[in-house]
């Protein structure tokens, strides 16, 4: 899904899933934390560089988004 959507960076991935999963925009603080967490888990900001092992970090990202209060409005 990430590759098919042409997402190149961790930031783009976070924005993509926030848009897909949440009905309301989340705050910038949370968005920044999610980007930092994903980059930390990938070890890079580049999706291309992490293409072979990014599934677990992406699962973790989805879990975090779905754990937000805003997800209850989805």
């Amino acid at each position, binding site marked *: 899904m990430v590759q098919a959507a042409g997402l190149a960076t961790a930031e783009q991935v976070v924005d993509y899933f926030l848009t897909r999963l949440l009905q309301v925009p989340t*705050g910038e*603080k*949370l968005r920044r*934390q999610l980007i930092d*967490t994903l980059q930390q*888990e990938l070890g890079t900001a580049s999706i291309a560089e992490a293409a072979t092992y990014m599934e677990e970090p992406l699962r973790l990202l989805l*879990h975090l988004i779905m754990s937000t*209060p*805003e997800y*209850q409005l989805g």
Partner: protein
Amino acid sequence: MTHTIRTSSCLPAGLSRRDILRAMGAGALALSPFGQAAQALAAESADNNRILVILELSGGNDGLNTLVPYGDDAYYRHRPKIGIKPEKLRRIDDHFGFQEGMAGFERLYKDGQLALVHGCGYDRPSFSHFVSMTYWHTAAPNSGEPYGWVGRLADAMDPNNTPNYLVNIDASQSLAVRSRSHIPVVFDDPERFDRKGLQQEQTLLNSTPEPTTHNASQRFLREVAHGAQQASALVRDAWDKYRSPVDYGLVNLDLPKVASLIEADMPTRLYYTSFRNNAFDTHVYQNSTHARLLTYASDAVAAFLQDMERIGRADDVVLLAFSEFGRRVPENTNLGTDHGTANPMFIAGRSVKGGHYGALPSLTELDEGDNLIFTTDFRRVYASVIENWLGYTDSAAVLNGTFEPFALFS
């Protein structure tokens, strides 16, 4: 008469009427004449530090084999095999005795700290655990009331929605604490009352949600999340610090958790806990099982009040115990009892005026199903604790009707 609030299509998208009412909060209430009266009543009850602990004995406790009317021959005629002989009872007067294992209740009664309210029930009784418990939870039999009486009481007593005002200790939230405005703190094990996740998720999961947003529903959800974070920290801290020499017996009914929060000076005025899992549903070979259940309950309640003495809060705490119905008067062929109707309620605490209240239900004039005909609407007991213990004088507004309180407190 009760009114169910339904979401209207004319409301803004994503917002229910409940959301808007929540968003209006106490500020809007305070502006109306009704709101001013409600605030004044709430202020009266806020002047004291009194706490009510409600203990649910789930499953339908057999009141006749709990507080045994050994002085009435009809009891033994109805229960030739499971009736408990006078010499095996803890006799408290010339008519009643507690089960042998209920040393705690016997002591409380003899110390004048246990009120026994007889014949509690309601008109057109249900024999379904689920339905009858719903009636007791909502204090609104045969009505469809959406909120619990304890939740409605919290809303009335505390229109400013003080955090952690209402605590429910159980595996899941009881309907009794469901509230229009308050968010009850619901937990089971204090040590597990936090958000679980992978180690690398913890920072984010435990970060404080940003409170500001223009979306009322989103703001409400963030407040709930933030409140849960704060409550879980307080509960875990209170439980970590709690050390008591008091022996609560084999099944403590979560009462030590209540004690820990009271000792930690939580602002909670209303606690709700239960003897879980339909334990008292004694259809088969009931005597030994029932005796054990009552021993556990009696030991735990007496220990809890002893613990309140230890921490210097005995004058501030009262415990109310009830079950969703009693059992049928005659025993069944399995040496047990089936679902019945009226039952005694128990109110315990140092501020309680111990003794008997309410008229005794007849053991000879039963209904067509061989059940006791109730003599006391159970909401009279609710009204008693609302008005005469907690100090909220308009119990009719909470209970959707007027019920005469008993003078249960000294």
